[in-house]
């Protein structure tokens, strides 16, 4: 088998992976850094992020307030040591991106502009029009080209971690272009493969967001933590799920039900703020989980708008004016026009909650180290403890670079002290794994597209915005059946070059594993917290039993084994989580 070596292998070429690669190359210029991505890095899903990236800059703002917003936003499931580190380093990372050329939007005098965002008490979201992720990704990718020690394997699908002697020894990957497997022996591996929301039928994500890295780490014995927490972005286009940024609401957009009422005031997010004058943490600037839940209630009451692609509410931007819309939200104008035939300057855009982000993932601590020596994880594929039970918008893009840097530096250190394992056993393990994976080609009876569609419907149905024991149990059953059918999955394509039939089937396998961890973790959490909300008698937060992280451990013979781990609380003891006027009078949420 073709074999390569590198000191630091980064799996995934998105914002987190590229930041880690740059950090590793900067910290240790002698180290060989290899970024392996199943797509060219510019295609990574970071590119689709729109709204912005948080970093405290205002005179009336402080890292303490960012900390408080994040912890309450996460419904106190955040590891506060991680939040502290994050808020303290977010601004300097935004500035670093600027020095690398990121075209942040500016105020008239040339300073970086910031805007309001959901759940944030002050405007602190740096933005580049409404294509912040795009600009961050391209800045990071182009900056990575500067470092000669960073090499890339583009369009290589990483299949498995290779573990030897209790530590990570490398990765098994597949070169899609040459059509053959490749073993990469590594001193350290940084997993930066992104989230898994494609396991839901209605989602904002691109094709590639299939939880590959989560599944790999999971199968290698690392816990997937807090998988039950899946964020529904309140405003996606019905049907396609295409993301309509929170930035619309940050600029003053409002949400109306079928009666033309700004219904969020009925869900403890009021009182109604004046149109065009949004106020932080009120109404449309409440946190995402609350907004998505409000939609569900409106839908139950029959007050949502029917569209050919499902129920929706109206996102009204007409009062913002064409000028501002084209300056601050040009992408949204394009998307609404192209995909819905709507001009947002004159008509509201139908939107509905759409699966968007997986707060859970590979368990790490603040150093991004996992329980498997030599394996680090960062970005959406990781559960760093930053987001807790619900992520605030614009914290994710910032997390990529703040913790991406940490991951790169730590991985480089680890590799320099530990060396690159290169043993016959490693090669044998890789050969055997390659054989297993490739044997999928040209056999089977179950069409993968059907398994995928059924998985999507089961997840949307049972592990959506509101959950019941019945629904989750049914989904768990379906996932188990789908996994059994997957054992006979059919891959028609046998051409080794760019075999996307096979590659998407591998991705489907990852999604099934991640879905299993998700539904079982959700079933077991008998409370409602953040984005995990139940209608079956567990509708309240239960700090006594569940102020804990869930940990799902892979079991090849059945559902995951579940354990719980404590949450790190430092300065913010759990309080009630409130927004709108209610948030002014209680201690939490301010």
């Amino acid at each position, binding site marked *: 088998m073709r074999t390569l070596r590198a000191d630091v292998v980064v799996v995934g070429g998105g914002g987190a992976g590229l930041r880690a690669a740059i950090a590793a190359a900067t910290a240790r210029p002698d180290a060989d850094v290899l970024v392996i991505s199943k797509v060219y890095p510019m*295609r990574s899903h970071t590119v*689709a992020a729109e709204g912005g990236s948080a970093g405290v800059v205002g005179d009336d703002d402080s890292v303490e307030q960012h900390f408080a917003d994040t912890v309450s936003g996460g419904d106190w499931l955040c590891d506060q040591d991680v939040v502290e580190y994050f808020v303290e380093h977010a601004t300097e990372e935004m500035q670093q991106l600027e020095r690398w050329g990121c075209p942040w939007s500016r105020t008239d005098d*040339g300073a970086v502009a910031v805007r309001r965002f959901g759940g944030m008490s002050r405007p602190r979201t740096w933005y580049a029009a409404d294509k912040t992720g795009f600009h961050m990704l391209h800045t990071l990718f182009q900056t990575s*080209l500067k470092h000669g020690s960073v090499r890339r394997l583009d369009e290589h699908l990483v299949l498995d971690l290779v573990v030897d002697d209790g530590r990570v020894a490398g990765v098994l990957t597949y070169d899609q272009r040459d059509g053959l497997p490749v073993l990469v022996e590594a001193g350290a591996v940084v997993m930066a493969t992104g989230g898994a929301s494609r396991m839901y039928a209605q989602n904002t994500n691109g*094709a590639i967001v299939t939880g590959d890295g989560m599944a790999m780490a999971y199968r290698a014995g690392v816990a997937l933590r807090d998988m039950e927490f899946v964020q529904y972005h309140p405003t996606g286009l019905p049907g396609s799920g295409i993301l309509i940024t929170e930035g619309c609401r940050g600029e003053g957009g409002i949400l109306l039900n079928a009666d033309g009422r700004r219904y969020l005031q009925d869900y403890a997010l009021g009182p109604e703020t004046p149109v065009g004058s949004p106020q932080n943490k009120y109404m449309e600037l409440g946190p995402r989980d609350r907004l998505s839940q409000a939609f569900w209630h409106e839908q139950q009451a029959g007050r949502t708008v029917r569209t050919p*692609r499902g129920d929706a509410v109206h996102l009204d931007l007409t009062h913002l004016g064409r000028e501002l819309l084209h300056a601050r939200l040009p992408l949204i104008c394009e998307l609404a026009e*192209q995909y819905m035939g709507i001009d947002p300057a004159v008509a509201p855009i139908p939107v509905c909650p759409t699966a968007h982000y997986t707060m859970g993932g590979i368990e790490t601590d603040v150093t991004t180290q996992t329980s498997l020596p030599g394996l680090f994880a960062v970005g959406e594929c990781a559960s760093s403890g930053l987001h807790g039970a619900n992520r605030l918008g614009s914290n994710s893009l910032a997390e990529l670079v703040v913790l991406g840097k940490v991951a790169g530096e730590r991985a480089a250190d680890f590799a320099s002290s530990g060396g690159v394992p290169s043993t016959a056993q490693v090669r044998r393990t890789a050969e055997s794994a390659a054989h297993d994976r490739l044997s999928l080609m040209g056999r089977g009876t179950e069409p993968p597209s059907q398994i995928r569609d059924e998985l999507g419907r089961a997840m949307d149905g049972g592990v959506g915005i509101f959950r019941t024991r019945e629904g989750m149990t049914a989904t768990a059953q379906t996932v188990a059946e789908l996994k059994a059918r997957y054992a006979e999955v059919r891959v028609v394509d046998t051409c080794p070059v760019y075999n996307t039939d096979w590659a998407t089937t591998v991705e489907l396998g990852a999604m099934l594993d991640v879905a299993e961890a998700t539904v079982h973790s959700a079933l077991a959490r008998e409370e409602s917290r953040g984005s995990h909300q139940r209608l079956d008698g567990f509708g309240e937060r239960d700090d006594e039993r569940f102020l804990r992280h869930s940990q799902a451990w892979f079991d090849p013979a059945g559902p995951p084994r579940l354990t719980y781990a404590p949450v790190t609380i430092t300065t913010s003891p759990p309080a009630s989580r409130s927004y709108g006027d209610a948030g002014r009078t209680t201690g939490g949420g301010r």
Partner: protein
Amino acid sequence: MTDPTTPQEQLGTLTMLVHRFEPGTDEVPRFVEYEVPYGQDTSVLDALCWIKDTLDPTLTFRWSCRMGVCGSCGFVVDGAPRLGCEQFVRDLGPGPVRIEPLANLSVERDLVVDLEPFMQSLTAVRPWLVPDPDDPVTEGSHTQTPEQMLAFHDYTMCIDCLLCYSACPQVGLSPDFLGPAAITAAVRYDRDSRDHGQRERLPVLDSQDGLWDCTFVGACSTACPKGVDPAAAIQQAKAAAARSWAAEFLLPRRGDRP
């Protein structure tokens, strides 16, 4: 991925002739015909996904975001380079519609082309911010007004979809040509007030396979789905290169900011 049609919404079916090529099996590419049902919001990309899921799992093409930002799904649709996710079937002719890979680039498989020449061109133009060698900003941020941003902002919008490479005849005639997107990336930095890298980018641009293969056809800007206007970037770079040459000629070692 959305089911491209639900029974009550179907507007019709379209015949699509899709370019197929399997290395190791096919000597030359061939076209295969598919009948595809479509609705009001079915895109070409949706149609291809439907073919792959329903009729032929071996059909291979790149895609990801389906909202026109990742740049993966470039194809030639009835002779014109388009993003599959932004081209709607309802707007296509009566059929049969030809779906081909991007022109001027080698075909690896079906609708997948070789992007390596572009990746090399992009790296060659040194597309990163070069700080001021005398007074670099090492902390905080640069100041940059919206007026200063105007000079380069459009050029930052390139999604590397390579529709411009497909449209540009010079890319087909001179395979070593840097090409529109790579040159635009260089110009994006050259015109960024924070950058001081014009000097190191100039030799790459100011060469036969750099700028000067461009004969200002303008097809790149017509094809660009993001309004980047690479033709403008290239002509501006030509003017800058000419000015620089003149400055060197008249006053050697003078600065060469455009």
